[in-house]
Each structure stands twice: as structure tokens, then as C-alpha cells.
């Protein structure tokens, strides 16, 4: 279960602080997969990063009672001067995962091959994203966090990503943000709408979608 208690988030802007989240309260119970709908710039990604702990709220608190992934495919935490394998080992160490098993899995799944031993700064965006996605599939999380897309990369890799994610989803929950209802319907059991810095949860996805469409029109 993840409890979000009165989250506020502001960023310093050129003309004063920008208020992104204005008092978000929610409970994400175990066993439910939840989608959050919102327009571009509504603060969806910010809320997601705060949920999984990548970013700290300005005010408020997040209580996490589950192992929560980073946003799938997020490669911003890699050190460019280190190789893919070295970055992988770092993640294994901080999560207490077996380095040998994870290395075997990621090397195979990401199709990076010998590039695993090249510095990440030499990688293309697609390669980084493949490494990040494979790494998040190698560690068993109770909650997987998705920001819009499951994985970037070519069609073949995306197909593979969708397939493995179906398997991982069996014992885990999903929290995703999106502006597209189709994906939310595919992965989630409930949904909410983020609008004006506040989150409203609905019992059904259709109900959330109706309110979302009303809010943006």
C-alpha cells in the first residue's frame, strides 16, 4: 500500500514559484492497479516521481509499504562515465539483488551484448532505455510505475517489452499516468484524474474518463 498524504509540490520559476501539486491525497492499496489521467503539464509525471520516491514533495508525506519500481524505462539515474554493466551492478547492490543473475537477464533481454561494457554516455537513447527497462524487469517489484509508455525503442523491442510485462504483472500492481484512456483500460482496475493540482479518484475507469473529458473540454 502507498499512502499519499497532502502532497504539495512547487518549483522555482522565473516569475515566482510554480505550484504543480496542490494537496494530493490518495491511497493506492495492494491488489489494485491505478491509472491517473491528466493533460500535458498537469503534473502527472511529477506526482509519479514523488509516488515512487525519485523526487521529494515540497510538503506532505508518502508512506510506501511496498517495493516500488522507478518509472519504467527511466535512464536518468545512470552515470554516463560508467559502463552499462557497472551501472547495473550499482542498482543490484542498492536493491540487494544477485549481480550474476541480473547481469545474465539484462544482457540477454536488452540485446546490448558487448555494449554492456561500454560507457553509458556512448549509448543511443534507445539503448539507454532498453537497459533501464530490462533492469526494472530483472528486479521483482510489488508495484511497477509507468509514465505514459511501457518502453521506447523499435517495434520488436516494444512487443517483447509488452510480453514480459504481462508476466511480471501477475503478482504485482501497476500505477501509471497517461493522457490516453486505452492504455489505462488495458492495465488498470481503477482510475483518477489529476486536474488543477488535485487528484480525484473514481470507482470505475469509465467514470474517470468522463470526468477527464469534461475537464479538458
Amino acid at each position: 500500500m502507498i499512502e499519499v498524504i497532502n502532497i504539495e509540490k512547487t518549483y522555482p520559476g522565473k516569475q515566482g514559484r510554480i505550484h504543480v501539486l496542490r494537496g494530493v491525497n490518495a491511497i493506492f492499496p495492494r491488489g489494485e492497479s491505478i491509472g491517473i489521467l491528466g493533460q500535458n503539464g498537469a503534473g502527472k509525471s511529477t506526482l509519479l516521481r514523488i509516488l515512487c520516491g525519485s523526487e521529494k514533495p515540497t510538503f506532505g508525506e508518502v508512506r510506501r509499504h511496498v517495493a516500488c519500481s522507478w518509472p519504467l524505462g527511466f535512464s536518468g539515474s545512470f552515470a554516463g562515465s560508467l559502463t552499462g554493466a557497472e551501472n547495473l551492478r550499482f542498482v543490484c547492490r542498492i536493491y540487494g539483488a544477485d549481480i550474476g543473475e541480473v547481469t545474465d537477464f539484462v544482457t540477454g533481454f536488452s540485446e546490448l551484448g558487448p555494449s554492456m561494457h561500454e560507457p553509458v554516455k556512448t549509448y543511443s537513447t534507445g539503448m539507454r532505455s532498453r537497459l533501464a527497462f530490462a533492469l526494472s524487469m530483472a528486479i521483482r517489484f510489488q508495484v511497477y510505475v509507468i509514465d505514459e509508455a511501457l518502453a521506447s525503442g523499435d517495434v520488436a523491442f516494444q512487443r517483447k517489452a509488452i510480453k514480459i510485462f504481462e508476466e511480471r504483472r501477475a503478482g504485482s500492481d501497476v500505477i501509471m499516468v497517461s493522457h490516453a484512456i486505452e492504455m489505462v483500460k488495458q492495465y488498470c482496475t481503477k482510475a483518477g484524474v489529476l486536474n488543477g493540482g488535485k487528484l480525484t479518484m473514481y470507482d470505475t475507469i469509465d467514470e474517470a474518463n468522463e470526468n477527464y473529458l469534461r475537464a479538458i473540454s
Partner: protein
Amino acid sequence: MSSDSAFPAAPAPAAPASPTLGNNVAVMWRVVFALMIRESRTRYGSSDLGYLWAIIDPLIQLLVFWIIFTVLQRVIPVPASMPVFLMTGIMPYFFWRSCVGRGASAATSNLQLLTYPQVKVLDVVIARVVLDAASFVIVTVIFVIGLRFFTGEPFTSWVRVPILLATGIMALFYFSFCSAVFSSSLTRIWPLWPQVFGYASRPLYFASGIFFTLQSLPTGFRALAAIIPMAHVLEWIRTGAIPGFISTSYNPSYVIWFGSILFVFGMVLEWFLRLIGHSDESG
């Protein structure tokens, strides 16, 4: 290209961070260990030249002052050889200065790491100081052996009272760690701090007693120099290290108290920054 159940199960379950103290300590140790390995790669790079620099830097300092002292025919205030006197000052001072600098950049140069919820700024500071301490010990041993080899300096020139030397070095580590914690917090509210310290460390370099001992100073100057905690640390280490040199001018509890206050101040500041949701990317 692959059959339906081609993927192996996720091999590694990630443990949820349950809020027990034992668990927190275990996670912290894992993170610090991982950071040390990562830091040693990024700091020295993959080339061996990076590691070599850790030796070349103090070697240049030693040679420069050795030559200056010899040319000026300065007499050192302790019954020891020139390199022993200089090294027991240069090495600890450089260690401390390096720790303050590494503390200052702990948060800003590791922003991407802090996106992992289990990585805290304090972990980065601990990893950096421990790595520096390991480097300090290794480089010192290399110098002791090297000077034995090149100038015939006997090993016994470096130890007078082993327990005093050991506690002096522990005090150096403690004080430097506390300084690094303080420095890391201060940089986050005052981004100019690293530059300010850069200027401040120059006069401190001369005032901390690399070239003199507190014991050898006239009383007035001694009281002034004794404000600087690092002057006490150097005097402590030299009293433990240099045969025939016994100083009563250093105060161990001054070092410990000064360090502890810096530590507490740094931690309170860190806690306060967390409370107000300070984000480091804003500078």
C-alpha cells in the same frame, strides 16, 4: 523470435523498505558500499593514472616545501627529519581539505543518484570520506616505504607512541567526516560555499601548523593558532608519530567537540532542508 515463456522469472525480489532500524542499517550499508565502488570508478576513471595522482599530488607538495626549506636553511621545530615533519603535516591537512570539498559536492554532483529513494546525501558523504580515508592510509604507507627506500628514513621515525598516533588519526577521520557533513549541508543553502572555502583554505594551509608546531609558537601566536581545530589534530598526530617530540599544546576534547558541533549542525540543517522540501536542482 522467442517462444511464449521465453523469459526467466525476475530473479531478484526487491525487499520493501520496512521501517525497522535493523533494516535501515542494512540498507544504508548496502548503499554506502555500492556508492564506494561507484565513486572509486568515477573518481579515478578506468585508467591507472587516476590512482597514481593520489600519490603524485602530495609528493609534489612534499618536494616543493622540502626544497624551499632547504634553500632558506630553515630549521624545523622538531627533532625529526624534514620529510617526516612535512609529511605528518601535509597528509592530514590534505585529507581534511579533500573531505570538505567532497562533502560540498556530494549532493550537487550526484543528483541522478538521489532519484533512488534509498540513496541519501549522508550516504554519499560517508562513502566519499571512507574512500578518502582508505586512500590516505595507502598513500601514507607508500610514502613511508618509499622514503625508507630512497632516503633511508627508518620506519621507527614515524611512530613514537602507537596508541597516540592511532587515536590522532582516528580524530582526524572523525573531524574530517563531521566537516564533510557540515560542508554538504552548507553548500545546499549557500552555493558559494565551495569557492569561499577554496579561498579560506589557503591561509588555513599556513596557519594549521604544517610548517610549525603549536608547541614552538610564542604564547600569543599559539593562542591564536589554537583556534584552528586542524592545528590540534596535526599536533596530536605528530606527538604520536615523531620520536622526541612531545607537545602539551593540543587539546583532544577541543577537536572532538568542534567536530561534533559541526556534525550536529550539518544534520539539523539537512533535516530542515528535507522538512521544507528543498530541491537541489534549484541550486
